[in-house]
Structure formats: C-alpha cells, structure tokens
C-alpha cells in the first residue's frame, strides 16, 4: 500500500478508539463505505484487522522458502565443491560424504530461511522508519499501549477532508484528528 507523499495536502485523518472491537467495526464500516487506502494502529496484533484495512500481501512465506532453499544449496555445494577442489583422503571417508554433509546443509538451510524471512519482513514493512507522520498525531504515543487508531489516508480516491471527518465521527471514536502531511527531509 502506497502512503501519501508530501504532495498530498494531508497525510490523513485519524480516529482514536480505546477498544479493539470498536476499531474492527470502524475499519469494517470504512471498508463498506468504500475507503480503500487506510491504516490501523494497535498495541498488539488483532486477528483479521489487516485484511479489513486492505492487506493483501503473502510474499513473506515465499521469501522464507527461497532463503531456505538458497541456504541449503549453498551449504551442500560449498562442502562438496571444497572437498573436490582439494580431494584429501580423510580417514578413508568418501570425498563427497553426503550423510556427513547433511548437518551443515541443514544448519545453513535454517540460517538462510530465518535471516531472509526476518530481514524480508522488515524490508516489506519499510523498517527502519524513524520519522513518520503518524508519530506527530496527538495521543499516538498510546498506540503502543492502550489506544487503537484508524487512519484514512489522504491519497484515497474518496478522501475529502470534511466528508471523511464527518464519516469518521459517525463511528463514535474518542477523538478525530488530522495528521499533517509528511515533511520533506531538510
């Protein structure tokens, strides 16, 4: 999902809730109202919320798989290749001792999968991102503690500062506020 850039007048409108279910309902009705570009901020993962705000991405498991396969391949062929490059007789064992090589192959499989997956996750999430418009929003500090936020982004087709605000207020949030647009790095 593409977030509003500095060109958009507003980053978006933010509605604050103090309960997870409320947020879910709000997200659902926003979705029904035809909003497509929105985001929600919660202190902990909430089942199904992401899909409501338009999360469609399932690349991550594949990244894990790729990492795993890559790691395993590197692991095995590294061992085989090196043993063949300077074939030394080690205790009469075969030069390419497949059973013996499996252990390191497995280790590198795990290493490849996990590091690929985790760094992939951070990348897809555009992290690290120290500065973000929402950080400027009032009460957002509580987003990690006990507040739940729904944001309708400024680059949504249906976005209109007044109408959208009205819409949000209809969802009985604790408060609704504007999020200033992202500032240019000076």
């Amino acid at each position, binding site marked *: 999902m593409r977030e509003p850039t500095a060109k958009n007048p507003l980053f978006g409108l933010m509605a604050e809730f103090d309960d997870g279910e409320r947020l879910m309902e709000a997200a659902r009705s926003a979705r029904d109202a035809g909003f497509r570009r929105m985001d929600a901020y919660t202190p902990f993962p909430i089942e199904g919320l992401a899909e409501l705000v338009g999360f469609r991405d399932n690349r991550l498991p594949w990244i894990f798989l790729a990492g795993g396969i890559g790691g395993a391949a590197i692991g095995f062929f590294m061992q085989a290749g090196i043993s063949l490059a300077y074939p030394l007789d080690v*205790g009469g064992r075969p030069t390419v001792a497949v059973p013996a090589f499996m252990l390191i192959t497995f280790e590198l499989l795990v290493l490849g999968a996990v590091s690929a997956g985790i760094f992939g996750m951070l990348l897809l999430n555009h992290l690290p991102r120290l500065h973000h418009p929402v950080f400027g929003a009032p009460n957002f500090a509580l987003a990690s503690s006990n507040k739940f936020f729904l944001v309708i982004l400024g680059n949504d087709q249906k976005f209109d500062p007044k109408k959208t605000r009205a819409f949000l207020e209809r969802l009985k949030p604790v408060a609704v506020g504007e999020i200033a647009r992202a500032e240019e790095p000076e």
Partner: protein
Amino acid sequence: MSLRDGHNGAVGARIGESLRGKSGRTFWRSLDELAGTEDFRRFLEAEFPSIAPDAGSVNRRALLKIMGASLAMAGLAGCGGETDEEALPYVVAPENVIPGNPKWYATSVTFGGYAQPVLGKTHTGRPVKLEGNPDHPAAKGATDAFTQAALIGLYDPDRTKAPLHLGRATTWSTFDAAIREQAEKLDGTKGQGLRLLTGAVSSPTLQRQIGDLLRRWPNARWHAFEPAQETTRRDASRQVFGEPLDWHLRLDKAAVIVALDDDLLGPGPRQVHHGRMWSERRQAFHNGKAACTLLVAEPTPSLTGTMATERLVVPHARIAILLAAFAQALGLQSGVQAPLDEAAKAFAEHALERCRRNPGAALISVGAQHAAELQALALLVNERLGALGNTLGFTDPVIAEPPDGSASLEALVSDMSRGQVGTLLILDCNPAYTAPVDLDFADVIERVPLRLHAGLHHDETAALCHWHLPLQHDLEAWTDARAVDGTVGIIQPLVRPFYDVRSKHVLLENIAGRFDATDRDLVQATWRTAWGQDFDARWRDTLYRGFIPDSVLPEKAPTFNTNPITLPQPPKADGLTVLFRPDPTIWDGRFANNAWLQELPKPIGKIVWGNAVFIAPALAGKLEVENGNEVRVSQDGAAVTGPVWIVPGQEPDTIVLTLGYGRRISGEDIGGGLLHELGYDATPLRRAAGPWALAGAEIAVTGNHQDIASTQYHSAMDGYDFVRTVSAPDEQAAEKKKQPSFYPNRKWDSPSWGMSVDVDLCIGCNACVVACMAENNIPVVGKELVAMGREMHWLRIDRYHEGDPADPAMYFQPVPCMHCEQAPCEMGCPVNATTHSPDGLNQQIYNRCIGTRTCSSFCPYKVRHFNWFDYTADDPPETQAARNPDVTVRQRGVMEKCTYCVQRIREAQISAQKDGRILVDGDVRTACQQACPTQAISFGDVIDPESAVSRRKASPRDYTLLEEVNTRPRTTYLARITESVPGKAKS
C-alpha cells in the same frame, strides 16, 4: 638447565648407500682437514658461540638461527611464519661439505670401557644422529638406548667447559706448568706414590700409554674400577683354568639357555650383541629351523625373564642351590645340599631334560653379580653339557686386567689410607659416588696430597680433587676401544671439541710431562707400530669401516684343572634380601645428566626421572603400601629411604634398589641442582664384599609419600588381548576376515607403507624409543609433566603382565602410530591438519594444526602427543644444534605423533629419483627399526608381496591391535609364542 630442556635429535638416511657412495679417503680426509684448518674452528665458533668461554655476550639463539638459515636447515624455528633472515655463506668452503646434505662417519662411542660401533651423521659439522654400523660383527647395525643417547651427551651444556683448580676456573697453561714440575719430581722418584685410577680400559692406545708410563716410572701403579663388571667370571676362570679369561656366550648357537639370575638381554654393554644373537636364533625358530628355549630363574623380573619360555621366581640365595642341583644331576659335587621346593624341582627337571636333548647346544649362565665359586661351578656344568667351544667361548680379557685384578680399588684405598699415595689421577670414573660405602673412598682420598680428576662433568669425585680436567666426549675425540667381542674400533671425531677440553690420551702424556702430541698422533702411533708399512692403507680402511676387521681376540681352548669347587654355604634366609642393580637408563649415574635417558621409562615399572624401592605385591600387601609410599630399607644402622614401586613377578622377600640416583652434587655442578632431588642413593647399603646383594635387611613404612613419575600406571592386561599369544610359530593368532565397512574400499598402489612389530622378539630395551627421540626432535618435558601424563615419546613400549601377580606372564609391546587406513583422528580434525597420504601415511601437518585435540580424543591407541607448552624455544644453543634439520620443530599448541619417519621416506624417494632407481625394499628404514637389536620392527611397502614387511604380515601370527575398532591399522603385530609349561597356570 639442560635436564629440563627439550633435547632434540637428528635424522639418518640409508646407511649402506651413504657409506658405499663415497670413498674412504674423502671420508676421513675431509674431516681431518676440516678439523685442522683454523677457519673451520672459526666457522664452528660462529655456529657454536658456546665454545668461546666469553660468548655470554653474543646472542646465541640469533647466531644459531642465522647458521640454520645459511646452511638451509629448516626446522629450527618451529611453526613460525616467514621472517626476514640473513644468510652467511662460508668464506672458504670446506671441502666435501654440502650444506643440506648430511655426511656419515664410522666411529664408536664407549660404554663401560667397551666400544659401541656407530655411524655418525653430521650436518655441516654438527653431529645430529648416531646409527648402528651394519658391517660390525658384534652389533650388526643395532644400537642400545645408551648409544643412541650419547649424541645428546656430546651437546650437554653442563659439561665442564674449561679446567678447574680448587674449584676455580683456570687455563690449561697453568695446569701444564704445574704438571710439568710434578712430572720432574716423579722422574726423580721413579713415580713413587703416583697412582692412576681409570674406569674399564679396552683401548689399545690407553693400554700402551699406561704400559709406557709404568715402564718409565716403575713405582707408579695403575688401578681400575668399573662399578658393574664381570670380574667374578674372570676370577672363576682363573680358578678353573688358571688364567683370567672373558666368557663369550654364543646365544645364536644355543637351543636351550638356562639363565640363573642372569639378565643376558638386559641393559649393559653386551645387550646389543646378546640381543642380536638371541633374535637370530629366535627367528630361526620362527621359521622352524631351530629350537630356542630360554629358561630363567630370577628373584626380580628382568628383560630376559620377560622373554623366558619358562620363568622361576627364586630368591637370590637359592640360585646357588639351584645350580648345585644341576651340578649334582650331572655328577658334580659342590658341597651344597639343600632341598628344592616343588616349583624349583620342576624347573630344574625341565631344564636338564631340555639340555640333555640338545647336547652341545645348551648353555647355563649365572649372573655375573654372583660369587666366583658359582661361576666356576657353572663352568663345570657347561663343560658337562658340552657347551664349551660351542655355546660358550673364551678369549683373553677384552677389558685390560689391572695389577690387583678385581680387588684393584680396594688395594688403592688401603694404600691411600696408609698414606702411600702422593699423586692420584682419576681418569673418567667417579668412585666417590659409585664405590661401595665401606671403602670410605671420599674420606681416604683426602689423605692424598695431589688429586687430579679428569672427566666430562664436575661430579662427586671432581669435587674432592684439586684439579678437575675436562675430557673430550667420544664423538669429538680420537681414540680406540674394543667392542664386547674384542673387535677394535678406531674412534674418530664427528666434530672437533667446541669446549676447551682435552683427550685422555693427551692428558696421560701431560702427566708424563709431554705436551706436544695430539690425540690423533697418539692413536696413530699405536697402530703404526702394530701395522708397520701398510699403516696408511689400513688406517684409511679402518676409518672408513669404523673398526678393524677380524680383530677379535683369538679363541682359547683352556684346560681344566680338576680341583673340585665348593660353594660358600648360602646365608640363612632370615629377613629380606636387598639386591642392587645398575639403573636401566642412567646406569651407575654416568648418564644422570642425559635428559633423553632420564625421561626414558625404565623397562620394568616404566618410571622416569628417578628410582624407587621395588618390592613384590605380596610384600606390599604385608606392609599395606601402594606405589609412592615411602619406606626405609635398613641393615645394621645403614639405611636407604625411598618410594615403593610394586613389581609383579618379584620374589616376595626381595627388595631391589637401583644405582645412579640421589646424587651428592651441588647446584653449581651438573644438573643445576636437579640431580640430587631425584631418587635415592643406594650406596649406604652397598658393601665391598658382596656389592650386589645384602641379606638380612629390614623394611619399615615411614608414612610419607613421594611422587613417582611413570608413563604407564596400569600394566595388568585384564583379560584383553592387546598382546596375543600362540603356542607354536605356525599357529593362527587371529582369523583373517575382511571386516565390513561403510566406506569405499580404496585401492592402494605401491609403495604404500606399513609396519610389523614382532612382540615375540621385542625385549623392551628402549633403543627404538631413544632413536625416535633423536630422529624426530622430540622434546623432553621433565618429571612434573610426565607425572601429569604429558610425555612426548612418539613410540612407547607398553608392558603388560597377565595372570597371578606373584608369577605372571610378562610382555613388551612397542606402540607407534598405527597409521589407520580409516583413521578416526583424520575424521575428527576440523582443519585438515591430519589427513591420509596417497602412500598410506597418516600425515600430521604441524603448521596447519590449531590444537583442538579432537584427533587425540578419537585415537583408540592414544599415540598422539600434544605440545602443552612451548617446549623448544628456550633450548640452549647446544641442544638446538643437535636437532634434526629435516624435521619441523613443533610449536606450542600443536599435536604431534609418529610419522613413520616420513622425512626418511621422502629423502629416499628423492635420491632414488635423482639417480633414476626405483625404490627397493630396505631403502627406507625407520629410526626405530634401524636401532632395534632384535629386529623386532619391520617396515616397508605392504603392497609389494616380496617386501620383508609383507612377508611378516603374511605370517599366521600376524594380528591387529584393537581389531574390533575396525580402523584398519597399517602397524600390525606378530603374536608372542608361549610354549605351554606343564604345572603352570596361564590365565
């Protein structure tokens, strides 16, 4: 301090080749000219700064390193990487010295007066290894441990480097002045009061000089004292034949040998000769060509007893009774009547029955430490058995007989005590320490106005003398000596002295007031008279061979005077009997400062760096003591205190003490004060009458504990089959079947190396162990580390006993690296530091090793050794100079082990390729194989079915150590042959 230093040895190549490759002429000439030329001396000084008395300022290690570099000798700096180095070429290259290529010289070293023939290998003037001389009739290429270790004796940093007068360093010129006027005085009195005390003398030149001296000064007198000598046999032959004769036991001709407390194969000057003869007989027996039985009756286990077909444990005193029984059975009277117990009777019967079955091929010998009467009776018994001329021969004494015969030292002592001795020159012997206590040598010598001591070390006797005059080591001297069989060996220097020392021949001349002659002149003089005109040719030939061919003393067929022998009545066996033995590795103490021998495990007990009070398990049980508990052995007042070591197979009422330890040497002298910390001194219990046995002794536990360092704490075989036994040479020791394996079956192409060790021939003499140390730069680690289990010997000789500890079966088993084809160690190493070579070697690459020690953990044979500390960096330059340049000196933190002397293999291959030969069997001989007196070790190409090793491995006695581990070792063993002895239970 020399004893703690790692002493490192040197490599040898194929001897026959290297000798025959060159003409005798270039041989000695090159060295001669080298030795003579002044620039060679300087060159040496550049190499051995230690030769210059004022060399303290020079950085010895640096210089030595430079030398190493300039002469392209790798290995001095261990595993260090590339460092900037200088190269110092010669100024004028000495003839025939090729840097990087060794030169070989045939010579000898002396031991107990006898010549031990060797080929000395030198690298650019540094002797680096001694090997047996294959052409010598007595040794036939073998050596013993003492001979192998003589090399490091040469480089001993504790040798006296310059004359001492009243304990202060002085110069030879002052000595010359003093002795000159002394000589004039003596001329006046025809040598009144001059006494010469030597060790055993076989040197024709020395005998000639002594003769001259006594002719010139009739009132002078010569005495000789050698702590362990066969004087009793000489006295016996004087008694029986009317003339002193040497006995020569022909073990190769004996189908039956009955050794009554006689360690024929044990340590001593005769070990190599005897071992070689016995093994020839034994190998004939293996091939079904001859009988070879060895029956031994002894109070304490000896090497001979270990190899015995049948062994009887009998107290010292009853040897006489046993012999008397033999005599009686052969119709000889001995005046001794005493009943034999069951075992003894059985033994005597077997023995006699066997002797009778082999007329003319039987031999009975009684240990030389037993009284002359027993020896005499033994002569008669042998005569009855038809041994004389067959298995027992006689010649005139090889060791010159001093005027007072066996009582020579006693005579000197009594004269000294009566103040009849004015000048005493002690030549290369140490009576102040080795003489029996009741002679009070140390006290009476004080009554001699002028006392001179000449020797290699400032020892107990030197400390009592006004003058201490440093002697040359045999390897840097011109002299001569006879081997045990009488063959004369000319001893030529491998290197000229690098300390300020003199030859004993020159010294004897000096005593007579002559100062011009060199040692070489003196030796040549002897032979010039002997050989007349063809001197030059024969001299050259002799130097080339190292000995004078056919110079054995003529065989004698003496006639018996038939007066009957009456044995002394054996003492009532009350209390315990103490037996004294020379130490098996440092002898009477003369090798005390030889670190290789100090760290060499005693064949029985495997203890190092000290001696112990050896007692039987039964006695230990009675005293409730364990190894290391301190006991006090005493007899009327005199006492010896030492730690106990329990010896299975020893007679319960027998205590064995060994000589050579508990030295009374101060810190400034040899050993830097370490020597007197080691072991106890047995002398207080030794009496001039019967110096080898003491009856009626008591033993008491002190309650203290002393640490004994041993390399093997458990010797009970516990029902395992490490040493396998068969009852006949052609009996199968292990069923031959291909063992299954997960791993690919590899094809080996020739050459592919392997070893076969015959435990039926190994007499546990340790020669191989020292040879290995010398060859492979194996460091010495000292008593503490050995006690921790950190000894470095690549080749160890395991000793096992089996069955009843009171009278067990005993075995020796040399254990080098097995070079397993499916080696666990190789699989364990994470960095490829140990892998398998295409020719079947288990390679250990020191510079790749990072010291995980996994290889050693996985090694079922535990033949790998680890450099826990840096053992080599702080060696004094002398010991560094003794190192083998062809073997890497290992750094701290790396694993090392037997390599099958890979440096010899590669050297052989390279020279074979250079002269376009193919490698033939015998081209490569490992150091251990080369040294072995009994040919127990065979090495070669296991693919070639005709090679000696393949033929051995084809024997039905061939078996694999720890076959069940399935590591496919290349080192295999031939089983011990034990004839089932009636009435003796084998476990």
